């Protein structure tokens, strides 16, 4: 069985399972959060303009909390779930390239995750636009929603790929992932200087700052940062994803996984 054919087989099986799983339902529920918040905000008197309702929850809640957390939950389980459930035995004793397990499961996981995040971002924009603000304050404009959805999707893919690779390396990928997300990224991403380049958040910000509308600059933390050009940021994110997946594939191909009885 070739790598591509096996990957497609595993992708197909995992996609079906993911769509039916409780975890997907939970992720969907969480992704709806910003949209619900957008609707709620407009219930209060003196609600801000809809464009701000998109960018603040979009940036602080969706991109900085929901995308990493859901990517961690989904991505870290790509390999570690098979190991924890001890079902990896059946796959590793088949004549398939082991890397296909990593790629196939990640592809299915990332697809479902990205769809959910895109839906969440879209719902946020929809609720902000039609959630109750009068027409003169409901206008959102160009360069707000598109980059947000794009970065939610790309952030989901990159984070999930990174956490999937971490899942092949560590016995407790969730701990490592949480540490990276909330300690390393939370600290470095807000520190002025070159160290921001060690975080995925920096490149997401760079893309939005470069391709998004001027209104994104209203977010405070943007003022302290010298961004990379949007194209370079996008290339870096894709490069991180490719490297993470490559590392994951190599590790899973060579490593022995000891299953507890």
């Amino acid at each position: 069985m070739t790598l591509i054919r096996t990957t497609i087989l595993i992708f197909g099986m995992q996609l079906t399972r993911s769509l039916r799983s409780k975890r997907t339902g939970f992720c969907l529920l969480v992704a709806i959060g910003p949209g619900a918040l957008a609707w709620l905000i407009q219930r209060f008197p003196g609600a801000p303009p809809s464009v701000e309702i998109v960018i603040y929850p979009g940036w602080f809640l969706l991109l900085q909390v929901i995308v990493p957390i859901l990517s961690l939950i989904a991505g870290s389980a790509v390999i570690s779930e098979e190991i924890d459930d001890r079902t990896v035995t059946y796959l590793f004793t088949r004549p398939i390239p082991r890397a296909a397990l990593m790629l196939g499961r990640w592809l299915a996981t990332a697809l479902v995750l990205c769809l959910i995040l895109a839906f969440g971002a879209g719902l946020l924009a929809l609720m902000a636009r039609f959630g109750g603000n009068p027409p003169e304050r409901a206008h959102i404009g160009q360069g707000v929603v598109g980059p947000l959805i794009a970065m939610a999707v790309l952030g989901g893919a990159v984070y999930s790929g990174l956490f999937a690779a971490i899942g092949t390396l560590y016995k407790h990928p969730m701990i490592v992932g949480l540490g990276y997300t909330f300690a390393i990224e939370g600290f470095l991403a807000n520190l002025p200087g070159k160290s921001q380049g060690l975080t995925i958040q920096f490149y997401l910000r760079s893309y939005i700052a470069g391709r998004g509308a001027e209104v994104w600059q209203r977010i405070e933390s943007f003022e302290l940062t010298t961004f990379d050009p949007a194209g370079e940021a996008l290339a870096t994110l894709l490069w991180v994803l490719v490297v993470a997946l490559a590392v994951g594939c190599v590790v899973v191909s060579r490593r022995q996984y000891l299953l507890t009885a």
Partner: protein
Amino acid sequence: MSAVVEAEQVGRWYGQVVGLNELTLVIGPGVTGLVGPNGAGKSTFLKLVAGEIRPSRGRLEVLGLRPFANRAFFRRIGFCPQQDALYDDLRAPALVEFLLRLSGYRRAEARRRAAAALERVGLTQGLGRKVGTYSKGMRQRVKLAQAIAHEPELLIVDEPLSGLDPIGRAEMTELFRGLGEAGVHVLISSHVLHEVENLTDRIVLLHRGRLLAQGTVGDVRRLLNRHPRRVVITLREPRRLANRLIGLEDVSSVRLDGDGARLSVETSDIESFFRRLTAVAGEERAGIRSLESTDASLEAVFDYLVG
């Protein structure tokens, strides 16, 4: 015939814990039982043979190939692991079919083989339910089905009879025997010695990570000459025969059991004893009703070796 498994000074450890130590053995074709108490290293050995893990040292070849992460090897084997782990959200036919497709079969062929394998292991009901709702016995059958569905050359089964009721055990034993007769090499591990004995007389005995004995049960027993063989004779005139037997030079003890209708004899040369017993019993008109060698079993062999 060439060896199925060749292990030379194989060792495997997990940190400080030694799973296997300096294991050197050759397993030939046919059905072979791998026996030993819990913690003997059976599962470790089977995982090495199945290519799930690598040896920490030594050389291991199965069907002439190094097993670990070897796709050519995996085409030729089927592995039924010990752990009760399956894809609980799938139905049994879908699960077996998926694994068959990973073995390279097309969808229609995989579906047909999956159905045949499930029928062969006796799982004909509950196929519409998810595996997570199955009883332990049904789950065991699913595990076996996925191991045999692609007609492997070597079947490796780790504690396959656990969770099965007596009828199920009998059916599975028959299945393995049938596979053996059909030319499939079967390596089966169990700590339930009499079940392995029902299946095959070729055994590999492990204890504390080391090879304790290998061969047929009878051959291994013959090697244990420090333990005299015990024979229980049920007969009409036990005391008369006892008088004669005690005079034979390779009889070390004769005991009248419980109700006095049985003799329990210990002898250092059982073949010679049986030859002379016929004559002696005939002369004394002892009226032998039954004859049983009580410690020729695998369990007895194991007790002598380990105890």
